[in-house]
């Protein structure tokens, strides 16, 4: 269908506030790309500049190689799903979906066929005569989806479309959106602040912070090879644990790492040159084993049962970390136990810049 390219795209409000600081990004044909970041990171502004709802301060937006920065939204051949659905209350579901088609002066019979088709795809074929205020939130969301599909755009833009749904519906809509994306194969840009939503939907995730791109990668890449401390902390529930350790001299088995109640060796090539310095060790909760003969002593402070696994809040000296373990281990609160980091499943970060050391 189409590619979207952003070239040095910049947005400055009131000549002062830099909301988007000149970003470069290419969305591939048929790709589901998620812009992820905390609120105020510029992800929605970026999307609105692609849609044409926000003026571009500097830089370019290209859709299929054509610069569209100067075009009004209606000439960009994009469609959008809004956070609050934005389906028009004075029109029936049918009229909402047919709005864009009527403007395009499509044949009446063709409009009927098209609306029925997308209504079926979105699971709202029985609601076409209703008004929006007769629909539940989830149904309204589906109308918004159907309306967006109906125009067969080059690019789909979705601005936090699931954030107003309740938790169960949200997870279900995720699956549905992914299926619809598979069947339409449309290039999609999806904005969210919910990292688990991003992980489950995206082909690639773009993590943004303060108007700049921090990392671009597949869900696996950003999860397992987070570019810096911010990403490692932002992605994952619970997020990466950070322990500050002093790098000792290289011994036979690797570098000697010492910290508060910590003393173990790790063979990690990125540590070369950091001897005698303090670094941040980052480890995901599931990459920690609980074993009787493990090198690190910890106290179990809290247990959060999740059914399939338990989240344990462990205290090591003054530092705390969360680990995800099997319920079979049978830890109790205030019990002392021993743990080990899975070899090769942890990273080191520069404590000053937050960048990963082995990048």
């Amino acid at each position, binding site marked *: 269908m189409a590619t979207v390219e952003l070239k040095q795209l910049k947005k400055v409000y009131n000549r002062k506030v830099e909301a988007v600081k000149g970003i470069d990004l290419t969305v591939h044909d048929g790709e589901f790309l998620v812009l992820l970041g905390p609120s105020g990171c510029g992800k929605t502004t970026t999307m609105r500049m692609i*849609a*044409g*709802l926000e003026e571009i301060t500097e830089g370019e937006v290209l859709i299929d190689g054509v610069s569209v920065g100067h075009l*009004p*939204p*209606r000439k960009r051949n*994009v*469609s*959008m799903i*809004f*956070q*609050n659905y*934005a*389906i*028009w*209350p*004075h*029109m*029936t579901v049918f*009229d909402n979906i047919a*709005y*864009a088609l009527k*403007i*395009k002066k499509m044949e009446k019979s063709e409009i009927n066929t098209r609306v029925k088709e997308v209504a079926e795809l979105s699971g709202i074929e029985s609601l076409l005569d209703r*008004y*929006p*205020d*007769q629909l539940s939130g989830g149904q309204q969301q589906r109308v918004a989806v159907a*309306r967006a599909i109906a*125009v067969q755009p080059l690019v789909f833009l979705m601005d936090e479309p699931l954030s107003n749904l309740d938790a169960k519906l949200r997870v279900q809509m995720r699956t549905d959106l992914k299926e619809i994306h598979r069947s339409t194969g449309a290039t999609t840009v999806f904005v969210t602040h919910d990292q688990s939503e991003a992980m489950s939907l995206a082909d690639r995730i773009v993590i943004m912070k303060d108007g700049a791109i921090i990392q671009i990668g597949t869900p696996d890449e950003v999860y397992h090879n987070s570019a810096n401390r911010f990403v490692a902390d932002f992605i994952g529930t619970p997020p990466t644990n950070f322990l500050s350790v002093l790098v000792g001299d290289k011994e036979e088995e690797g570098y000697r790492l010492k910290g508060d109640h910590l003393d173990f060796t790790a063979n990690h090539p990125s540590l070369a040159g950091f001897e005698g310095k303090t670094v941040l060790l980052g480890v995901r909760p599931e990459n920690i084993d609980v074993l009787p003969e493990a090198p690190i002593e910890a106290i179990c402070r809290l247990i959060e049962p999740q059914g399939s696994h338990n989240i344990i809040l462990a205290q090591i000296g003054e530092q705390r970390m969360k680990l995800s373990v099997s319920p079979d281990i049978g830890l109790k609160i205030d019990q002392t136990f021993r743990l080990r980091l899975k070899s090769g499943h942890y990273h080191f970060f520069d404590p000053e810049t937050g960048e990963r050391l082995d990048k």
Partner: protein
Amino acid sequence: MSKEQSIKRRNWNQVGPYLLVAPALIYYVFFWIRPVLKIFMFSITDAAGHLSLENFRLVLEDPTFIPAAQNTAIIVIFSVTLEFVAAMALALLINRKFKGSSILLFIAMIPMALAPVALGAMWKTGFTTHGWVNSFLTYIGFLDIGEKIIFLSGESRFKNLLLIILIDAWQVIPSMMIILLAGLQGLPKEMMEASYVFGANRWKTLRKITMPMLRSTIQTAVILRLISALQIWLTIVMLFGFGRVPVLLSRVIYYSEEVPNLANSYQMSSTYSVVIAVIITIVAILYLRVSGAFGRKNGGAKA
């Protein structure tokens, strides 16, 4: 809670609400219902105090009644249309929140603060042959020095009505604009943005999305305006006196203030009031029916 307390509580729940509305009710009865009834009674009694419909015959046969009704109708139709279009345009403009839009809003509000009497006086001094309107037109070079336009003394009915409509619009547009602006600001921006994304230009969005979504606000603004336009009189009397451009309500004032000593002055004045009230009711119901305020389905208005 003891039994006694609970009985007390129940008594209060039964009587309390009536006690709370009592002051408003008393006010309403004495200062609203009583005068209204009195006017109604005046309208159906003759000068001697006997029941009679003579007053209505007199009103309808009053040689000024037909021109007054015509003038009122013309003023209502043209001034409300002009005011709605201008107020809507102004509200849309101010709602765009450009630099200085709040200053524009402030300036646009000024006419609203002026009383009709001041307004009449202002435009009267303006439109007299040596008034400031002619001076201004000369100043900007529209008129040659010494050339004057005679606004007020000409006997063209068209010119007089046009003048009234323009002055009325000048005063009323701000209040209508404020209502529409409030309505516009209550609309979620996403609704209009969705329309732009799905292929509509500004004009189409205004017609298909903004106006229909604003319908109940528009109805409120127009109905308030219709009613007050049907009751226009003070500015007209200030400009032209009672005789030259009669309107319905000025007849009420004419009988009670100008010729209060006729045997049936109050009867005529009251009867005109009742006639106006009936006309206003009919017009309001017609408007609401035409604009679709009745019979709207499930709260969702049909486009």
